[in-house]
């Protein structure tokens, strides 16, 4: 506790330093107007608060009397005065309401031709869908062009909040909610040396955004928080927004994340795709029967199909199942899987196959079958 007390002056100093700002950086077209309105309301509040607090203290000093003294006046009411202070503040209220509502309508009406990005919220993370099967947890947008987010949630209510943009919208399961904004400050890039140093120090673990204050690709960013309480990891359900100066820069980034990085093994890339691209929703890893067969018993297994034929689930079978999923449906399952044709590259598919080999009991590294597992597998 003593250590804490010693921090106190230092902390106060931080707060009083000249760089103090009330709001975070203004980085969208909404920000300036919103902040103006905030300070407009605040100054009206101050205009009322100072006389109220002033009267409070002044009266206490001026009319503080020893016990037993009578009040100087006993005026019970003054209707004109009371009507005046009931009605006059209403004009300020109407002004606030009108400005707030107009600005709000502007924030709600998505301009035509806005760049559309899909957003999926889940416990506890975000997936941004850039189309053509490119998905990434980070939100990358273009500067000086409106961006529209089409948002859905796969479990509970979440809420997207980008303080720098002064924009917020709940993501409600069972419906799409939309929001839009136009960023007007592009994210800077850090130097290659700085990025290389950070990458080296960070190691292979999860990238520490708070520590480095730039992304793994070297961009500065704006925070994106979840602001609707969603359970255990609500407070770490954060991601970042990167604003690109040019379309070329954005496309280059999309191109980069849509492919397996040179330093990543196909197995690791396959695992990432398994988690990011929705495979995990229907295909379990632990043998549980979901909408589709579990990957625990997929690769290398003898499969029996709905049309009565048999085949071993080899590389070619898996490739066909991804591209033409309704051709050979395993017995006992419905033909509901969508085709991933055009959404996954050859390298992606090869990576997924490599990953499936590592999780299957029938894969190349399969352990000798023990008695317990045998009963588990046969059905």
């Amino acid at each position, binding site marked *: 506790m003593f250590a*804490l007390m010693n921090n*106190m002056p230092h*902390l*106060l100093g*931080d*707060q009083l330093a000249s760089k103090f700002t009330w709001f*975070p950086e203004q980085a969208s077209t*909404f920000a300036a107007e*919103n902040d103006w*309105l*905030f300070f407009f*309301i605040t100054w009206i509040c101050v205009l*009322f608060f100072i006389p*109220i*607090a002033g*009267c*409070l203290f002044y*009266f*206490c000093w001026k*009319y*503080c*009397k020893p*016990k037993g*003294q009578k*009040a*100087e*006046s006993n*005026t*019970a*009411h*003054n209707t004109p*005065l009371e009507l005046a*202070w*009931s009605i006059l*503040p209403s004009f300020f*209220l109407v002004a*606030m*309401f009108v*400005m*707030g*509502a107009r600005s*709000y309508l502007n924030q*709600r009406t998505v301009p035509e031709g806005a760049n559309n990005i899909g957003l999926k919220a889940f416990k506890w993370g975000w997936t941004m869908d850039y189309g053509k099967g490119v998905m990434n947890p980070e939100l990358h947008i273009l500067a000086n062009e409106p961006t529209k987010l089409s948002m859905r949630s796969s*479990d*509970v*209510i979440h*809420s997207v*909040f980008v303080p720098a943009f002064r*924009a*917020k919208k*709940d993501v409600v399961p*069972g*419906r799409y909610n939309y929001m839009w904004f136009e960023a007007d400050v592009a994210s800077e890039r850090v130097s290659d040396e700085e990025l290389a140093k950070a990458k080296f120090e960070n190691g292979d673990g999860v990238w520490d955004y*708070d520590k480095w204050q730039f992304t793994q690709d070297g961009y500065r960013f704006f925070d994106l928080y979840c*602001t609707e309480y969603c*359970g*255990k990891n*609500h*407070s*770490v359900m954060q991601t970042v927004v990167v604003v690109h100066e040019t379309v070329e820069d954005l496309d280059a980034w999309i191109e980069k994340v849509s492919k397996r990085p040179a330093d990543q093994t196909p197995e690791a890339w396959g695992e990432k795709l398994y988690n990011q691209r929705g495979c995990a929703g229907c295909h379990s890893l632990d043998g549980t029967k979901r909408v589709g067969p579990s990957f625990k018993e997929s690769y290398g297994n003898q499969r029996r199909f709905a049309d009565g034929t048999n085949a071993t689930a080899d590389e070619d079978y898996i490739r066909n199942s991804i591209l033409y999923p309704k051709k050979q449906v395993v017995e006992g399952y419905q033909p509901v899987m969508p085709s991933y044709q055009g959404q996954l590259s050859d390298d992606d598919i090869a990576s997924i196959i490599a990953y499936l080999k590592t999780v299957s009991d029938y894969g190349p590294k399969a352990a000798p079958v023990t008695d317990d597992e045998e009963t588990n597998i046969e059905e």
Partner: protein
Amino acid sequence: MSAGSLPSGSQVKDPGYPTPSENYLTNSKGILSWIFTLDHKRIGVMYLVGVTLAFGVAGLLALLIRLHLFQPDGMVFQGEEANNWYNQVFTLHGAIMVFLFIIPSVPAALGNFLVPVMLGAKDVAFPRLNLCSFYLWVFGALFFVSALCASGLDTGWTFYTPYSTTTDSSVILATSGAFILGFSSIFTGLNFIVTINTMRPPGMTWFRMPLFLWATYATSIIQVLATPVLGITLLLLIAERTMHIGIFDPEYNGDPVTFQHFFWFYSHPAVYIMILPAFGIISDLISVHSHKRIFGYRFIAYSSIAIALLGFLVWGHHMFTAGMSSLTTIIFSALTFTVSVPSAIKVFNWLATMYKGSISLTTPMCYALSFIFLFTIGGLTGLHLGTLATDMHLHDTYFVVAHFHYVMVGGTLVAFLGGVFHWWPKMFGKMYSEAGGRLSAFLVFAGFNLTFLPQFILGSRGMPRRYATYDPEFAGLHQMSTYGSMLLGFGLLVALFVLLRSVGAFSRFGLACGKKAPANPWGGATLEWQCTSPPPFYNFERAPAVGDPYDFSDLEWEADEERYVTVEPKREVIPEEQPKPAPAHAEDSN
């Protein structure tokens, strides 16, 4: 012949009825005489003890939360389950504070004691229902707290779906507890409505009622009309969890936002259940301690009713970002602004009451002044949240946390403390240390501001609510807030110490208890100051003279006895031909 004209402290010997030397605290003894009491004053005292205990528990949890947030990664809860612990603690803090402390604090604890005495009545209209509602509260409280603790409820006090329909913790048990507590609240409200409607003494017209009664009446209306909606909502939630009826859960084609509409249809009026009685207390406190007639009585009374009615129409402002249609959102924003007008009227009227008064800076007055200061900040920052565009940024951030704590703590809690200090001499017959009381008021004021002012900035900078860990850039403000909460906690302990010391709780440690309280230590003109302190079992020896509750002209200070006495029997007297069921009859006073 009015009560005031008798020599103070005179004993009215009336065989068969307790004399003032036997007050309601001493007229019967033993634990059973408390457990089965039908006396509204004892029930009020039991509520006071109950809500104070609840506040103590929830307050300690609040300190735990603030300590945890001292460091960005969390200081108190560690390990894999740290965030779960944090979530359970903030849920417990909010739920206990709302359902077990703020809602029952003023109406059930102070209201039970004061409503009949202020009416010059013997008891509330339905004393048995009153005891029943107290036991429902105790039962509901135990049920609620044990359910929350046993299962680790982590939904927040708002139970938002679909989180609450899918989480593992026992939502059903907790909502059942809240359901029971709702009945307690409804019974109390019903009791007060009937009492105020039917038991006002002759001469006390609606506009001669103390403003505390007006506020209690308005509160009771909300309790009776809104609480059933909470009951329905919680039942639907239970049905959704057990039978999947598909009303809230999108998994079964329900709409989770429907739950928010249901929930806030109760919980927004409930905000006014929490603050209206506080307005009533402050109106009385400001007037009595300024020794001046309340300014604009009718405006204050009408504004309570206006708030109660308008409060039913603004629930949607909790859901501006949820995705309601633009039109709905704008209508709710407009309605929200209308509620701010009656609240502002009250603040202006209180200031006008102090103007040219004769102000005594007693402990209750210090709390009342603190209330006006803090509530004004709380009310004004509500404008930022009612304005749609700015709410888009501030919604669900610490700005909201600071705003509602300014209203609920700076408002209701401070008013409750002011009320307790004001009526403490009446309730327990002892005066407390004024210096200690004022010190507590100052510490609470300073600690409160240090805790919650930084949170306005935190919220404006984008710090979201209900975060167990946060980005390092917010650390400095969070730490200031934590220091403030320690000071606030210390101030509250001082208040508790001062009050308990006055009734002799620490006499074994050589700390003398307070002086015996006179019937009227502050110079109040409402009826409760006409009976002895503490009141006798039947409250009044004879039917009290009903006068103007805010006419202080015939009250004189007797310095050597440290009390106020009525000097001239100017007051209107009850006509003799209307016999009252009071124990003492008019023959004595003739």
